[in-house]
Each structure stands twice: as C-alpha cells, then as structure tokens.
C-alpha cells in the first residue's frame, strides 16, 4: 500500500490505539478454525429443519395436505401459512410480508412450508411429501409491465398495508419518491448542451460466503432464544415478533460469528420460521439454507432502469439534472423504498447542480425480493451519472477530471437538499488518484486501435467520483468498570466480519487511555445490550463510535469524581494517565488507579461505575426551503463521505474480454481508527464492485432463476485481482465523528462500475449503457461501432 501506515507514526506512546493497524480481536479463533458461525452451533436434542419452496411465480394457495409428511417417522412439526395470523406482517417501510407465504405465493422459490425432524435428511424427505393445492395466477416479471394498466396485481390490495412513511403504495407501485430543487424545467434553456440517455443495471447476489441460517430454542416457560446469521439482533427480534405476534419479552436474540453480510442479513430471512418451528415442536430447531436456497429466497441488489438528463454550460458548469428511476422491487417491499429514496438523494454525485428533479418508483413483481446491498442504490446511479459526465466531457472537449473538478463540492458547499457538510476530503481523494495513477501521462484522449501485429489488446483509463453517508437511526453504548479497574464495553453492534468489535474497542481503550486488553467486549444480546439498529448503512464506526466515546466520557467523569475525593482535590484538576490511572494535572505521582477507584465505588461509595449513552442521528437531510419532497423514506440520514477512483483496463479486441489491470481507490474516512481494517473495506468493496461491473448477473428464464449456484454465478477469484489495487485513506476529520472518523463499509463500491465503464469507453470508443460489461456485451458493442459507427451500446 502506498499511503503511510499510522501504526508507525502514532504508536510511540503505548496507549495510543486509535490509528493503529491492530489485528482483529477475533484473529486467534478465526485463524485456528474455532470461531463458531451459525452452522457450527449444536444444542442438546436439536431438530433439523428443511423448507419447501414455491414452484410457481404467482398462485393462490387453496389448501395444504400434510398427512403423508406428518406420518413420516422422525417428523416433529410442520409449519405453513395456516399457522400465521393474517395481520402479522413485517417490512422495514411497508408491512407487506408474512413469515412465509400465506394465501398466495408470489415468486418461484418463496418458502411455503417448513418441517422440523430428527435430522436433515428426514426433514428434506418430509417436505417433498407435502401436497399443496395451487390455483395458478398470471405473473408479472418485469417492472415496466408491472406498472402498465391492467397488469396482474402482486398484492391484492397493497394500498391497505401499513406504511411507515408516505410511500404512496397502491396497485403494483410499492413506493414512489420525488425531490425537486430549483426550476429544472426552465433551466434547460440556460444550457449549451443537454444529454439524455437510458441505462440499465442487473441483479447482483450478495454472496456472503456463509449461507443464511438460524437456530431457535424454547425454554419451559415458552420463551424463545434465537441465534442467527444476522446484521442486527434487534432487527431479528423486531421481525420475528412482528410476524409471529410475540411480545418482545418472549424472544431473546443472540449472535454467533457472522460470515459476512453486505446487506442480505440485515432484514429477516428464516428467523421467523425457526422461532415458529421451535414454538410448535417445543424443541430446539436449526436450519442452514443450502447455497441454492440462499440465492433463491434471501435477497439481491436491485435491477435499475435509469433515465438521466443533464444540462451544462459550454464551460462545463453543471446547470440541471433530471433523473427517473424504476426499481424492480420483487415480491415484497423490504428495503426497496429506502434504496429508491437514497439513490435519488445521491444521484447527483458530489457536485453542485442547482436545478434538479429526481424521482422514481419501485414496482412489485413476481420475483424474489430485492433489498439492501452495500452501496444501497448508489453504485447503480453512479454508473449512469458518471458515464454521462464522461459523455459530456467528450462533447465539450474537456478532460473528464477537469469537468469534475470544476463542479465538485468544496468548502462550505452543502449536499443536494441543503445539509451542511463539515468535512470534505473529496479534492484530496481526486488529487491522490490522479497523481498516483499518472492520469495525465497515461490517459489517451482517443481510443488507440490495437496494433496489427497480432496483439489484440487495447487499454483505457476511467475515473469516477462518489459519496456516501455514515449514520442513520439510533444506537447506544454501555461502559462498565469492573472491580479490578478493567472495563466491559457493550454496544449491541454485530461484527459481521468487517472488524467493528476491534474498532469500537480501540475507541473505548483510547478514550479511557487503557490498553486494549483491559477492555472486554460483550456479545450483542437483546436482553443485555443497548439498542443498536444494525451493522448496516456504514454506521458502526461513526454512529456506534459516537455512543462509545460518550459513554466512556461519562465513565471518565465518574472516575474523576471518585479520584477527587480520594486525592482531596477538585475533579476539574484531574486528568487520565495512560494505563488506567487518574492523576492531578501536572503531578503524575499524585494518582490513583482505576482498580482503587472501582474498589471504592463497589464497596464503599457511590456504587459500581457505569457510563452509558444513546443517540439517534438527528440532522435533517433536506432543507424544506430548498427542496420540495414527496415520499421521503429517511428524513435524517447521516454525514457525508467522499471517494475518487481511477482504473486502468485492458480490452481484448478479439473477444471483448475486459481485464482490470490497475485501480486506485481513495476514500475520505474522516479518520482511520484502524488503517488495516479500513483498507480491507476498500479492497473488498473494489473486488465486489468489479464483479458487478464485469461478470456478476442473476439471470431469470421466465419466472425461474437459472443460475442460483456458485458454478453458474461467478464472483472474482484471486486470478482476476488486478495487478495493482491501491487503497488510500483520506482523513478529513469529521467534527461530529468519534476521533474525527466516518464509516467506510460501503463507499468503496460506489464508483467501481462507473470507473470501469468509463475506462472501457476510453479504450474502445464505445459508451456502454448496461451492466455487466461481460465479454459478449463488449464485443457486440465494438462490432456495432465498427460496422455502423454507433458510439453507444446497450
């Protein structure tokens, strides 16, 4: 890596742990194979479950015949939609989904029944004996068709569902959102150039290496304990209780280690079913989805239809933007309304555009649900918007970086809609990748046709900028001082593999100036942890970190009150010393240890020391004086981070195959709490984005997903890793962030498809408007260009 590692510069004082590249706290157990994931948990007398999936995209369920399945030896319980109450539905934005199909099936692969049996083989045998009487209904598989008049309705009466915001749900419209700033209709007249184009993006599978699963146990009093692959024990609790009509006191949710999430473990998968099976059988029950079932029943990244129109002045100044999105939401709302609202907020990118109309809809279709996935709609709109900026630059005869630099947010510029930005590292991100890539020397303005000597490869460079938020909703932290003066940190934040346990512990240790091994981390537990909405939306470092710092500050205050009494001085005259001591400022020999203070608190005065803090992100996203808003799913979303990326690709003229040779990704992280972990996020996001750009695509043949396996759905391997992948951490010091930090989980993916598409365009002279840029699409585009001079390809 090219940027300096903080470990070398700030670790001189042993207590300085923020900024150090310490290994993950779970290193030992993850490296010797003893870390326990959901599939590794076993309980005494545990049953195993299997699911039955719908063979039809849309059908009414007229009845179930469970006789043969129940008669099979070793079967203990079967659950179907008949076990569910009609009014018990979940949904982050629209309450439209039961624990499994009830009344109707709405996509091929939807879960219609589940069996708990002595072992998995019996359970799988039993589900095949279940008879379901279906009445076939016409299906709608495409979002455009879904919104056409007279289209079959995925939900018979969607308008009746509870909506948590003004979603406008009706017919096959799951939600609609519109933001309007300035006067876009009048602004086109002020533009010297207006470019309008349509783009399409595909469905991408999250493909956490760990498939989803859950294990539920019921005690003698009927209380359920539930472990699962999850991104939030509190979301699991909410979904299960909503769908089963349980009071939250009846369900305790815990977490094993998590084999990554990327969004697909944030909302529910099979947790409600497992709780139901445990209740019905009175036994512990475990279910781990097969890879195929995981592909077919969990969720994926939304396919987008994008129409985007941008107007500029001759000098490159951006004036106006209209963008219209149509998202395939699949059968249930899930996080779709949020993805739409967020994509519309972010579509303008980190640029000043005075006149904007951003609007769109999510359509229900008879496909699997689409939901949260790293980037949350931004990779899609960034692909379209950054491709359009390159087209504009070419038409104006400007360098793509010069066009971006002319318009990008700087100084006190707010984000679209008016939210002030207090830390903006964008210029440094762009300067860094421009310098490190050698852009000026390496990028050619026009594509160079391959040499005639048989080498059919040509190269190109592309650039893209983006932004992301850190924040969203509520969280908390509790810091307790133990008798010996060490501390326990409890945040309820699930570490999904990204290293949040380590980062939050670093912050707590730093705030109290104790070594990391004096801080224990409590595992998330809905009985004992403070609420944490989830490890999602790039919020663990930034928002949970804020709570950790505030809870630690409360502990510091109490420590000083005790120390003041013990040292007979005012608390204001005290300071924390490294290693767990409180001393009189400037008089280090007049000190007391945390152990002595905690002993006093435990046994004599005041009681055990506990610091706690909760917060909710409360800064408004939109200034109502600037923007007219309809259907806003998040009113207060987060602080902004920025990123810039340059990639160099090689395109094979003969085959259309694209290879990424080098990539430079700079992300504004505010402050890197753990540089190694932060770079890991950027590197991992790049490869996941590269798969999205070049190869990954869920494909349906009619209603049926045809490639739900790793054999047929290809993600990048070590062979496709670029020769050089450089991650740069840009520190802009966010005033509201813990130690100046912002989060880094998602931002690294936003620019990847856009930068690769622009590089391919630079190499070939063809602008591609549809992802992924697989060899077939690129070759067809190049051949059409050669044959007819067509510069734009689907």
């Amino acid at each position, binding site marked *: 890596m090219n940027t300096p590692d903080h470990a070398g510069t700030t670790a001189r004082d042993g207590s300085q742990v923020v900024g150090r590249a310490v290994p993950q706290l779970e290193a030992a157990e993850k*490296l010797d194979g003893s870390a326990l994931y959901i599939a590794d948990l076993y309980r005494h007398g545990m049953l195993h479950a299997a699911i039955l999936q719908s063979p039809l995209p849309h059908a009414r369920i007229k009845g179930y015949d469970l006789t043969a399945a129940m008669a099979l030896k070793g079967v203990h319980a079967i659950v179907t939609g008949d076990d569910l109450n009609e009014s018990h539905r979940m949904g982050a934005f629209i309450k439209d989904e039961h624990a499994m199909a009830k009344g109707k099936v709405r996509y091929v692969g939807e879960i219609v029944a589940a069996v708990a049996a002595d072992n998995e083989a019996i359970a799988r045998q039993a589900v095949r004996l279940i008879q379901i009487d279906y009445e076939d209904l016409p299906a709608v598989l495409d979002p455009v068709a879904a919104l056409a008049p007279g289209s079959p309705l995925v939900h018979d009466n969607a308008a009746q569902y509870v909506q948590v915001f003004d979603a406008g749900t009706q017919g096959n419209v799951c939600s609609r959102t519109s933001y309007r700033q300035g006067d876009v209709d009048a602004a086109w007249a002020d533009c010297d150039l207006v470019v309008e184009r349509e783009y399409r993006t595909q469905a991408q599978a999250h*493909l956490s*290496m*760990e498939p989803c699963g859950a294990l539920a146990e019921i005690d003698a009093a009927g209380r359920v304990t539930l472990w699962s692959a999850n991104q939030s024990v509190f979301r699991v609790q909410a979904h299960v209780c909503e769908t089963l009509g349980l009071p939250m006191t009846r369900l305790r949710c815990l977490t094993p*280690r998590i084999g990554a999430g990327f969004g697909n473990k944030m909302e529910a998968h099979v947790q409600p079913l497992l709780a139901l099976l445990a209740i019905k059988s009175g036994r512990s029950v475990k279910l781990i989805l097969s890879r195929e079932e995981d592909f077919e029943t969990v969720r994926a990244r939304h396919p987008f239809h994008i129409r985007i129109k941008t107007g500029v002045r001759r000098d490159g100044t951006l004036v106006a933007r209209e963008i219209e999105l149509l998202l395939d939401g699949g059968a249930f709302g899930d996080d779709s309304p949020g993805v739409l609202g967020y994509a519309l907020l972010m579509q303008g990118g980190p640029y000043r555009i005075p006149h904007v109309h951003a609007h769109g809809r999510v359509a229900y279709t008879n496909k699997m649900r689409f939901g949260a996935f790293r980037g949350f709609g931004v990779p899609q709109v960034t692909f379209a918007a950054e491709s359009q900026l390159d087209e504009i630059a070419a038409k104006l005869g400007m360098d793509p970086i010069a066009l971006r630099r002319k318009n990008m947010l700087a100084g006190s510029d707010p984000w679209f809609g008016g939210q002030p930005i207090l830390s903006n590292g964008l210029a440094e991100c762009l300067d860094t990748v421009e310098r490190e890539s050698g852009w000026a020397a390496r990028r050619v303005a026009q594509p160079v046709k391959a040499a005639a000597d048989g080498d059919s490869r040509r190269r190109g460079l592309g650039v893209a900028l983006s932004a992301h938020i850190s924040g969203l909703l509520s969280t908390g932290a509790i810091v307790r001082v133990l008798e010996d003066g060490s501390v326990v940190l409890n945040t309820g934040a699930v570490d999904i593999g990204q290293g949040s346990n380590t980062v939050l512990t670093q912050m707590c240790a730093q705030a109290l100036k104790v070594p990391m091994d004096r801080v224990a981390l409590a595992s998330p537990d809905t009985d004992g942890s403070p609420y944490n909405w989830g490890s999602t939306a790039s919020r663990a470092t930034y928002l949970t970190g804020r709570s950790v710092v505030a809870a630690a500050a409360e502990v510091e205050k109490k420590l000083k009150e005790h120390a003041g009494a013990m040292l007979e001085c005012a608390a204001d005259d005290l300071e924390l010393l490294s290693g767990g001591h409180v001393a009189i400022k400037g008089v280090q020999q007049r000190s007391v240890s945390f152990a002595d203070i905690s002993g006093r608190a435990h046994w004599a005065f005041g009681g055990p020391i506990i610091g706690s803090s909760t917060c909710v992100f409360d800064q408004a996203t939109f200034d109502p004086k600037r923007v007219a808003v309809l259907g806003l799913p998040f009113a207060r979303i987060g602080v902004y981070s920025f990123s810039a990326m340059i990639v160099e690709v090689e395109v094979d003229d003969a085959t259309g195959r694209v290879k990424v040779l080098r990539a430079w990704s700079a992300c504004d992280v505010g402050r890197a709490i753990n540089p190694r972990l932060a770079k890991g996020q950027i*590197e991992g996001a790049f490869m996941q984005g590269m798969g999205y750009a070049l190869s990954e695509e869920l494909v349906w043949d009619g209603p049926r997903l045809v490639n739900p396996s790793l054999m047929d759905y290809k993600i990048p391997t070590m*062979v496709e890793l670029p020769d050089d992948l450089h991650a740069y951490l840009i520190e802009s010091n966010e005033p509201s962030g813990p130690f100046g930090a912002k989060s880094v989980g998602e931002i690294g993916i936003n620019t990847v498809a856009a930068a690769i598409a622009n590089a391919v365009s630079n190499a070939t002279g063809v602008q591609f408007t549809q992802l992924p840029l697989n060899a077939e699409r690129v070759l067809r585009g190049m051949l059409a260009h050669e044959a007819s001079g067509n510069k734009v390809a689907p």
Partner: protein
Amino acid sequence: MSETESSTSASPVTLRVNGETVHTVAALHDTLLTVLRDRLQLTAAKRGCNQGVCGACTILVDGKTMRACLCLAQACEGAEVRTLEGLNDTQRMQLLQAAFAENGAFQCGFCTPGMLVSANALLETNPQPDEGAIRTAMSGNLCRCTGYVSIVAAVKSAAAMSKRGAES
C-alpha cells in the same frame, strides 16, 4: 440437497482424522464434510456451496488438498484426513496464521480455514512461490470480504518468514 432417502442406513467407516483413528458411521451419500462437521464436530471446514466451487471446506486427504464436500465418506475408508484443526500445531501453519493476522488477510473468517489449508499445501510443494503461483494455486478459494490483496501479501510474507527461518 445431498442427504435424502434411506439416510438412516448408515454403515461403519474407519478414518484416520488428524492423526487419530476414528470409527464412525456414514450413509453411502454422506460426504466427508458431513461426517467431519456433523458427526465429529470438527467445524473448521465450512460448507459454503456444497458443490466444490468455493473452497471453504478444503482439507487434506492422504496429503492432497481436497474439497470435503466432494468426497464421499465411504470412499475414504482408511484414509489419512487432516483438517485445519490437525494442522494448527505445525510450524508452517503457525507462520501462515501469524502472517494472516499481521496482514489482515481475513475479515469474516468463513473462508479462512480453507484458505489456510490451500496456502499450507502450496508452501509445502513450492516454498517460495511468486505472486502468479500464489494466485493460481489459491484461485479455487473464494473470498467475498478482503478483495484478496491482503491474502496474497500474507502468503508471500509467510514464505519470506519461512526462508529467513531456514537461513538463520
């Protein structure tokens, strides 16, 4: 998926697992992965795809790397099976583990046992692999978290540490 009818008709099978003789039972269609994980509770090898693509279940059978999900347990009668649990005490594995920790060559850790077993096998046959050899040898182990950069660096670093160890 694999376990279906007549699953209860398991017959005895004897394996050598991590140096110990193990008498267990397996049906004809039970894979070695099922026996290791569900019967012997050796859970380092993970079931990521159950069709031999992801590499998370990589183990050694008679000294060769194999996908445990593609090995039928009954076909392994008498075989010498080694999982990550049985390699933890070896010097080469400990070098690799130290290098993985130092380089941040894992995030969620789900693919890590398979990665380590593959890397260990690579260094056994090719103690000083160049980057190309590392990428080729480990391309059958999928990771969705790290982007692979840190894994390549860790394997290189373990090889370098091993060389320094041998020279000193």
